[in-house]
């Protein structure tokens, strides 16, 4: 204990600290926006300032969540050869902690290195067991006379071949090994069942007594053990209560002591009010004084609430009356009331917020985004939330404390009480925190359950505490300190079997060698293991990737456009577009495909013809200053009026049927009974003929709403300055030219434009899918990118803009026409914009291009279908297209598409480095031409934009995959949309954030390998200049590599060493005639392969 006076900060400081805490919470709580605006982000964004493994460790410490794939998943991959022995060894050897080449011991004059020990311990689970498990192993599994069942055939052979003198049988060899393991560790073992401790044999008792007294200095005197038990109990008490604040909340303490979880009762009570307050329109009726803020309105309700009196807590109304009206004051009062030391206040609040991370995170998000669309006029205040949380915790704790011990819910009272009843504390604590043998558990449980303050008999607690202590001293328990039979000897025993080391080798080990071996095992903490596995997994994939790049060198088209391509199609950089691009290039080698962030450099506030308000379409970090509007084309105005009327009518009907039937009572009876006649056939067709029903409803929709031609307004009418605060309608000519020029420069398309340049935005449409936004374009804040493509095309086609561009040195040929389109990544349809504006001369060429793209979508559907379990195994491209369309209109389909699953790498460079290779839709492709950007200015901008977006997508998939239950949001099947902003499981769970299980099932959790076609010098200067990149790359959230534009040499960036040459093995890749030949018949991930390049004069 330090002197309290000195370390105690003044009250003012504490307040400031609490305020700062709220900002800090944004780092540890999920940062997910309301689900309609879902955008991928790094789940551990708050830990990004730390190196990857350190961040995962820190997160584990704060939240208790593991950040690597479970080890048995890695072992499965090892068995499938997705991770090899060599991959693991390379990683282990590159780690400076394990790099020691000096052998730990020798066996038959063969050295055994540390790396081999680690490798064995990774491939095979070698862990400490408990006393009971050991007894079970010996008695039921015959562990002392047989090999462990998971020891491989080769290890067994190895084991026998390492023996100099032949031992007759497996049994004796293993038995000898066990005794050797015990001997070198100086341990003895006899099998003892915990139940035997109930009636101690005098000899055993004497032995255990002397053993346990041996370990302590405190010998002599009477009743030593009794004093030792008491001391232990007191130590436990002060240690545990000392953790309240920084590590534990009052709820945790009560949970430890009684096994009752306050949160079970608090959660439903809190969530009802919380979701009603945050609701964005699901409910028709809200708190009459919602605008006062959460705390005030909650308090008002709580004062009238009958719950308290019904639940035996009637004194609460009185308590509530005494609380301040200000939330901040209440927080302080409450913290004082439960007696948390002032210095721990911020930490305590942090722990509290982390108890319901989803809800806390949503409240915080809303409090930090005050302008967010909502029904709430007032600002959402995080302090309100904390105040209510604290009050509820104390009130419910109060009931337990009163019923159990007749004390108030104060830390000091709890301490006071248990100082008088230390044995009770010890029994309760141990019962709820560690595993006890059954005979102790049942006694402890019945004592705890029957505990009654008035009739309590301290002797019983004392007796039980002593029994527990005795058990812990006995060989039947698991003694955590020093070497033990079940810790050290058992692990050594297993390790020896897996490494094929017989008794005689083990027996020759000296103390320090054994220590050395065990130290290796101890060094393999969960985090260390996970990180080794992860790197080995990544490196295995990386080597395949780099091998493909080396093999493909010089094969790809359009390194420089000496011959003019027929067309350029610019897709989003999205990994999902890799497939369709490859197929398009295979269909027509004269088409060049490119990739860029899907907002095409035009950040806009979009207002479609039917929209009532604007939608920003650009990356989340940008706020647009320009608005683009869609209006009816000339001559369509009248039709538009009709359209509006019909559309309004349709929306109203849908509103009536879906909403009024749940909102009203009498009128809904009429509605329900009449709509049931429609609902039945609709349900039947939807479920049995999803494709047809989709076609019908689309047709109905179109013909009812009236399809009207539209135009977009892109030109500014005024010359006023456009700013975020005052967005302007349209862009000026100069602004348009800037954007077009900038974008063409970014993707390296300043010359050699084909007769068509197609901007292909993307989006995804599916049914019954709350996570819809997660499938949309990340560069457009989780929305569709078609409007951006259309806007860009409209700008680039204007003669005024082209003239300015020409003056700036970019010549867009007269016969080049820029098109906007949108690719639906779910059902593979392509929507074209402003087709009627295409000059007549180009129309035939466009028809051809359109047909080619149509065919490419069929092929893309075909390739995607190989990974869908419900798609037929053999199907034609046309059937495949039908299948994906059916999927998108099937409302029972929880996997309309697989999203970004399996994304693993990103190429920034010319298409020529990757064109002609099959990458299995796992690679983000970003166009960049290093030959046009010698200073690296363009590259810098690309890295700054694409780096965080790629990392956001990749890392969200990573974390949702490694721990779907905690970092992801679990299975969709029990999800329940809440308040229009999130999903719960059932009706009273925490808000679930991250990706659902259905999205990540086939994902391969690895960090993104970025390969940039640029010289290492350029990259180094950029890296040195840009702090955001230093954070992402330097801390290992992204793995950066470079491929030299001239020599094709591949280098990898290592934060501590800089760029290091890749020296992996280069082997020949199989070459196939087309993508289809490579993937047909396969359902699992595929390695890269070369695709035969069509006969086409290289451009």
């Amino acid at each position, binding site marked *: 204990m330090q002197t309290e006076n000195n370390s105690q900060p003044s009250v003012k400081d504490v307040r400031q600290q609490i305020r700062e805490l709220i900002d800090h919470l944004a780092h540890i709580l999920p940062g997910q926006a309301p689900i309609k605006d879902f955008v991928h982000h790094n789940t551990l964004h708050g830990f990004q300032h730390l190196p990857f493994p350190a961040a995962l460790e820190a997160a584990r410490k704060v939240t208790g969540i593991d950040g690597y794939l479970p080890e048995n998943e890695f072992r499965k991959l090892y068995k499938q050869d997705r991770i090899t022995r060599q991959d693991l060894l390379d990683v282990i050897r590159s780690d400076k902690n394990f790099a020691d080449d000096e052998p730990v011991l020798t066996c038959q004059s063969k050295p055994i290195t540390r790396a081999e020990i680690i490798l064995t311990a990774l491939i095979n689970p070698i862990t400490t067991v408990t006393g009971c498990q050991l007894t079970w192993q010996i008695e039921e599994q015959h562990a002392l006379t047989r090999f462990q069942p998971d020891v491989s055939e080769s290890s067994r052979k190895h084991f026998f071949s390492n023996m100099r003198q032949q031992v007759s049988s497996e049994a004796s060899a293993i038995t000898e090994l066990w005794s050797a393991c015990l001997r070198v560790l100086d341990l003895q073992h006899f099998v003892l069942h915990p139940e035997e401790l109930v009636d101690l044999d005098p000899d055993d008792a004497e032995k255990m007594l002397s053993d346990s007294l041996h370990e302590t200095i405190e010998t002599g005197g009477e009743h030593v053990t009794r004093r030792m038990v008491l001391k232990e109990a007191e130590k436990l008490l002060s240690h545990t209560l000392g953790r309240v604040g920084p590590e534990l909340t009052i709820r945790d303490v009560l949970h430890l002591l009684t096994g009752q979880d306050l949160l079970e009762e608090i959660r439903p009570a809190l969530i009802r009010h919380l979701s009603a307050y945050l609701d964005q329109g699901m409910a028709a009726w809200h708190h009459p004084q919602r605008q006062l803020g959460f705390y005030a309105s909650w308090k008002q309700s709580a004062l009238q609430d009958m719950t308290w009196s019904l639940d035996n807590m009637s004194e609460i109304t009185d308590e509530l009356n005494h609380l301040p009206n200000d939330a901040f004051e209440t927080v302080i009062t409450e913290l004082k009331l439960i007696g948390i030391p002032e210095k721990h206040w911020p930490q305590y609040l942090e722990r509290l917020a982390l108890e319901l991370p989803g809800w806390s995170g949503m409240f915080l998000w809303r409090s930090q985004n005050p302008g967010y669309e909502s029904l709430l006029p007032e600002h959402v205040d995080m302090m309100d939330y904390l105040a209510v949380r604290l009050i509820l915790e104390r009130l419910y704790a109060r009931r337990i404390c009163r019923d159990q011990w007749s004390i108030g819910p104060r830390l000091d009272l709890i301490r006071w009480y248990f100082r008088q009843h230390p044995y009770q504390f010890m029994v309760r604590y141990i019962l709820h925190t560690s595993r006890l043998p059954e005979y102790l558990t049942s006694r402890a449980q019945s004592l705890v359950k029957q505990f009654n303050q008035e009739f309590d008999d301290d002797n019983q607690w004392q007796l039980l505490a002593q029994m527990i202590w005795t058990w812990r001293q006995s060989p039947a328990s698991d003694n955590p300190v020093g070497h033990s039979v079940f810790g050290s000897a058992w692990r050594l025993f297993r390790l020896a079997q897996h490494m094929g080391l017989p008794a005689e080798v083990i027996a020759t080990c000296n103390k320090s060698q054994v220590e050395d071996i065990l130290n290796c095992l101890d060094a393999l903490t969960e985090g260390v293991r996970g990180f080794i596995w992860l790197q080995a997994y990544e490196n295995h994939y990386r080597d395949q990737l780099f091998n493909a790049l080396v093999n493909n060198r010089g094969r790809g088209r359009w390194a420089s456009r000496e011959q003019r391509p027929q067309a350029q199609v610019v897709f989003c950089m999205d990994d999902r577009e890799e497939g369709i691009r490859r197929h398009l290039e295979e269909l027509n080698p004269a088409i060049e495909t490119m990739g860029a962030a899907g907002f095409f450099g035009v950040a806009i506030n979009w207002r479609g013809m039917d929209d009532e308000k604007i939608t920003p379409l650009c990356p989340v970090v940008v706020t647009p200053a320009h608005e683009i509007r869609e209006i009816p084309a000339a001559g369509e105005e009248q039709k538009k009026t009709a359209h509006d009327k019909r559309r309004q009518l349709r929306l109203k009907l849908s509103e009536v049927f879906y909403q009024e039937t749940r909102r009203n009572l009498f009128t809904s009876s009429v509605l329900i*009974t009449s709509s049931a006649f429609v609902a039945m056939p609709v349900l039947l067709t939807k479920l049995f003929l999803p494709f047809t029903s989709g076609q019908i409803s689309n047709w109905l929709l179109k013909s009812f709403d009236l399809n009207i031609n539209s135009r977009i307004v892109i030109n500014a009418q005024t010359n006023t300055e456009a700013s975020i605060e005052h967005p302007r309608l349209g862009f000026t000519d100069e602004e348009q030219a800037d954007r077009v020029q900038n974008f063409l420069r970014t993707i390296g398309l300043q010359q050699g434009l084909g007769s068509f340049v197609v901007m292909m935005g993307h989006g995804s449409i599916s049914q019954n899918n709350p996570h819809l936004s997660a499938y949309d374009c990340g560069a457009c804040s989780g929305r569709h990118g078609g409007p951006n493509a259309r806007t860009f095309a409209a700008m680039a086609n204007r003669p005024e803009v082209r003239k300015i561009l020409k003056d700036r040195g970019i010549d867009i040929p007269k016969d080049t026409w820029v098109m906007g389109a949108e690719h639906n990544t779910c059902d593979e349809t392509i929507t074209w914009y402003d087709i009627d504006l295409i000059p007549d001369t180009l129309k035939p060429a466009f028809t051809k291009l359109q047909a080619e793209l149509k065919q490419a979508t069929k092929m893309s559907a075909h390739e995607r279908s190989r990974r869908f379990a419900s798609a037929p195994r053999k199907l034609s491209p046309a059937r495949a297209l039908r299948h994906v369309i059916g999927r998108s209109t099937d409302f*029972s389909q929880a996997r309309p598409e697989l999203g970004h699953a399996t994304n693993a790498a990103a190429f920034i460079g010319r298409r020529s480095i990757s064109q002609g290779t099959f990458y299995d839709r796992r690679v983000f492709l970003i166009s960049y031409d290093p030959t046009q950007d010698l200073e690296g200015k363009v590259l810098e901008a690309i890295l700054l934009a694409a780096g965080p977006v790629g990392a956001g997508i990749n890392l969200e998939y990573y974390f949702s995959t490694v721990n779907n239950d905690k970092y992801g949001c679990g299975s969709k099947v*029990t999800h329940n949309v809440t308040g229009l902003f999130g999903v719960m499981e059932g009706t009273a769970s925490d808000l679930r954030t991250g990706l659902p299980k259905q999205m990540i099932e086939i994902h391969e959790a690895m960090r993104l390998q970025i390969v940039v076609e640029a010289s290492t010098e350029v990259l180094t200067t950029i890296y040195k200049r840009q702090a955001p990149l230093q954070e992402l790359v330097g801390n290992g959230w992204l793995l950066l590599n470079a491929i030299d534009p001239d020599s094709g040499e591949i280098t990898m960036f290592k934060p501590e060493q800089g760029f290091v040459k890749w020296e992996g093995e280069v082997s020949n890749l199989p070459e196939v005639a087309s993508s289809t030949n490579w993937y047909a018949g396969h359902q699992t991930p595929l390695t890269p392969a070369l695709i035969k390049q069509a006969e086409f004069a290289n451009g």
Partner: protein
Amino acid sequence: MAEQWIWLVPLLPTLASAWILLGMLFGFNRGERGERQTALVIQTASLLSLLLLLALMFNAVPRQQLPGLIDITTWFSTGDYQIKLNFLLDGLALGLSLVVALVSLLSIRFSVNYMHREAGFQRFFAILGLFNGAMLLIVLAGNAMLTFIGWELAGVSSYLLIAYAYDRPNATENATRAFVTNRIGDTGFILAITFSFILLGNVDWPSINAGNENKAGFSLVIIMIGFLMAAMAKSALVPFSSWITRALEGPTPSSAVFYGSLMVHSGVYLIIRLQPLFEQSPFMMFILILIGALTAIYGFLGGLVQTDVKSSLMFSTTGQVGLMFISCGLGLFEIAAWHLGLHAIWRAYHFLNAPAMLHLMHKPARPVPAWLQNRKWLYLASVQRFWLDNLANAMLVRPALNMAHDVQRFDEQIVVRAVGLPNSVGAISSLAQWEEYKDDNTGKLIGDSGAIGRGRGALGNLMEWLASVFSWFEEHLVLKGGDEGVISLIQHAGHYLNRLEKLLSQPRYLFLMIILTFAVIL
């Protein structure tokens, strides 16, 4: 003759479910590979039973002659009493069974895609098949006993599906809650069956409905009350409403078919089935209206404040069920039946679409009028669901728990001691005891009665216990020379009497005493 095959209708889905369970047991449909087979079996069975019903329908309707009561066989018969295996194929049964078969088939179809790759895929369909069979049995059965079997099977399958995610404590707790609430209704059902049996000699729906003017009106009222209780619990009417909103923990399609669409209506079906019986008692008709009105208000107001889709739909469903009861109470049974069937279909659609509600809502729900908006207390009551849950906790759950607690205490303190399980034998179980024993220097084990002998089996235990009692007696009363021992014995006795008195003064024992008294009187 198609009617004679009617028993196949509920049996087919049940058999499919049994097949799936067998597959899980013997491992021929486990995992992702078994999904196709499982889906095929359950879909075929449900489709067949739907087709069979349609065939019956097309056979009967043109002739304008419904088959009525079909006896398959006598199940149980003794003297005047008998229970038959029979089905009642009137308009109500045929119409509703079609709805049930159709909605079940649709939700099974929906679930095939939706539940793909779920660990509980097979389990889910096995339960769904069981439920489908049970619901068909409820509406088709010709007598109360058979309906009751369906009633129970539906209850069990509902319990299993609420606890589908049994690793989540919330789900299992709510499942238990729903199950227990339904048991109250079952008591009513059993009561009604028993009285019908005693009164009428059989439990066929037509004879129950015919009642008998000569028989005591009081008994008829008991029968009605029994059935009404059953209907109230199953259809979640006030005051039993709270279980159904807790039941939404299962996968979306199961919430849809169980609570949104089918099972929630079985109470209404029961009342409609008993139309002639209820019509005999204006008082009971009034009760129907009253309960229906309370439920409708509960559902409506509660529905206005719900912020999650599933609860919101559930409250709305409850409200509609309340209206159906009102219709029944007003004698408009036919309207109630139509309302039931159509509501079941629409709500199935509504629930299956629940995940899309986010995107189907173009603007916030229409706010309530100002006069309602500002009722603070009413708002709070709606948010807290009129405290029905808390009331149930205070009046039923806690007393029951406490009683269980006391029984356990009795068990451990008295029964266990009397039987002589190990904890009555004082042996050395901790090192501290060992040390004390050594320090004692008397060379005698403290409380060493256990060392006298160790017996095996019940007789052995008895002997052992007798021995330890005697030894204790000797040590405390004889060896210690009286005074001290006797005093402590008296203290002990006082202690126990104190506790007994305290226990008896608690309301739950008063409650128990009252129940016991009633049980004796009746």
